[in-house]
């Protein structure tokens, strides 16, 4: 598919030297050419047009760059991102910002399943809804979802924060370790070993910082959220369970 397309016709200064306002078009460039250019760029702003649901777009970025993607993307967009600020003017398929290390990823539409899965650091903001398995095995990434999220979010999440302005689906935080979950709406059900917890001042500070970072104003109040986290009965060593180990 992509291999049959003609060579890249990127406009502007680009490549390892960095570029300003580089425009890329997947109608005229291959996915591989586009990704190679983005992956080797160390500075600059990039606009990618006509993504048309392409997979693995802007994955593996490793530079202090701004990438705007104009349209809907396929699987794993922004995966493994290290340092780049990625904006998707559309919906994202499975695994957006999967295993993100640092930087920022902003989905202006909805995200499909496994958004931010295994993420290590940085911030993922989803303006719409996210479907199942958001932030599974989260390891330090912060996620803010302005809409609602599907089932099995934060499954085995170890570190990081998930903020949801809408509702959460079934089995939220199943087998969770030490990630923090803040949900403003209803939670359909909590997963195994996930419980509602008191919101202390230190949590209010963290939550406010996350809302600010996601561009959410004071009209959204931290006291409207509930905090959820691990009951610490499933994963920690407990002498009474010795026979089960």
């Amino acid at each position, binding site marked *: 598919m992509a291999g049959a397309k003609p060579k890249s016709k990127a406009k502007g200064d680009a490549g390892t030297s960095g570029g300003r306002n580089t425009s890329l078009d997947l109608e005229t460039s291959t996915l591989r050419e586009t990704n190679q250019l983005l992956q080797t760029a160390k500075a600059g702003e990039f606009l990618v047009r006509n993504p048309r*649901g*392409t997979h693995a777009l802007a994955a593996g970025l490793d530079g202090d760059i701004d990438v705007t993607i104009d349209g809907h993307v396929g699987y794993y967009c922004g995966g493994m991102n290290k340092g780049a600020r990625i904006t998707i003017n559309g919906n994202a398929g499975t695994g957006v910002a999967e295993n993100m290390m640092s930087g920022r990823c902003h989905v202006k539409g909805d995200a499909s399943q496994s958004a931010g899965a295994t993420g290590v650091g940085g911030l993922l903001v989803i303006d719409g809804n996210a*479907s*199942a398995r958001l932030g599974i095995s989260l390891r330090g990434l912060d996620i803010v979802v302005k809409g609602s999220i599907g*089932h099995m979010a934060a499954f085995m999440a170890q570190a990081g924060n998930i903020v949801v302005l809408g509702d959460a689906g079934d089995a939220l935080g199943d087998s969770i370790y030490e990630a923090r979950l803040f949900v403003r709406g209803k939670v359909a059900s909590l997963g195994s070993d996930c419980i509602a917890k008191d919101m202390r001042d230190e949590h209010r500070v963290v939550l406010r910082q996350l809302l600010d970072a996601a561009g959410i104003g004071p009209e959204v109040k931290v006291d409207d959220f509930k905090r959820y986290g691990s009951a610490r009965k499933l994963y920690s060593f407990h002498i009474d369970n010795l026979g089960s180990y």
Partner: protein
Amino acid sequence: MCGIVGLFLKDKKLQPQLGRLTAAMLHEMRGRGPDSAGFAVYNAAEAGTSKICAVTSVASFDWATVADRLQKATGVEVKVRVLEDHAVFKTRGDGEAARKWMIDTVPEATVLSQGQSVEIYKGMGDPDVIATRLQLSGLTGTHAIGHTRMATESAVTIAGSHPFSTGRDTCLVHNGSLSNHNRLRETLKRHGERFQTENDTEVAAAYLSWRMRSGDTLKGALEHALEDLDGFYTFVVGTEHGFAVLRDPVACKPAVMAETDEWVGFGSEFRALAALPGIDKARIWEPAPATVYAWGRN
């Protein structure tokens, strides 16, 4: 894996383009299912007539003789059109007797569909080659469903390719695998359903046919399926006037839908929908788990 596409046209002006649009969607899902592919196209024939689609793996098969024998057996006029390894028989009435006769007496043929509207075509190999060989782009109609297969539950054969049809004008494509199909097949056999393969999806198709024969609407049949089918599934179902989507409660298998005033589209991935006319203004969403989405026309 497997790829699914579906297109239900609301705007009559698009009907001449149905096959071309479906072929473009199927092309995008080629990588999800390189083993085999198939498609169902709904295009209503004259009232009181039926079409029966069949395929054979026998080279230069004598379909004309089958048509003659079928005419003698049923006592009504039968016409046949042959396209590659497929044949479409046209006859009067609901075609039920013709379907049964062909399953029972023509072991060289696999019956793919029966109904006033539906025509099903399928084959093994590259989905693009199949679509070209079976002239999908030239087909017109009201709605279409397509499938690219990466086999997991049964052999790669023409008969094991999707869509599956076990009832008049009803067909089903499936991404996933069912775990209770063997027992359910036996139950459905006792209710009189006929099976031509060992495939799990054929069981799901027969289940829906049985529910609808028992009085369920398409939506009702799918709601019952949530209780009785065990396993992973994203289904797209076509009926004479309708089109429906259902995902299992875990929603393992991907699905994206889009709707405009002109059409409703389904794809395993967004890229299957990306070339549809007016996609930029479409409402796009991911169907929720265990929720029936259905469209119909009167």
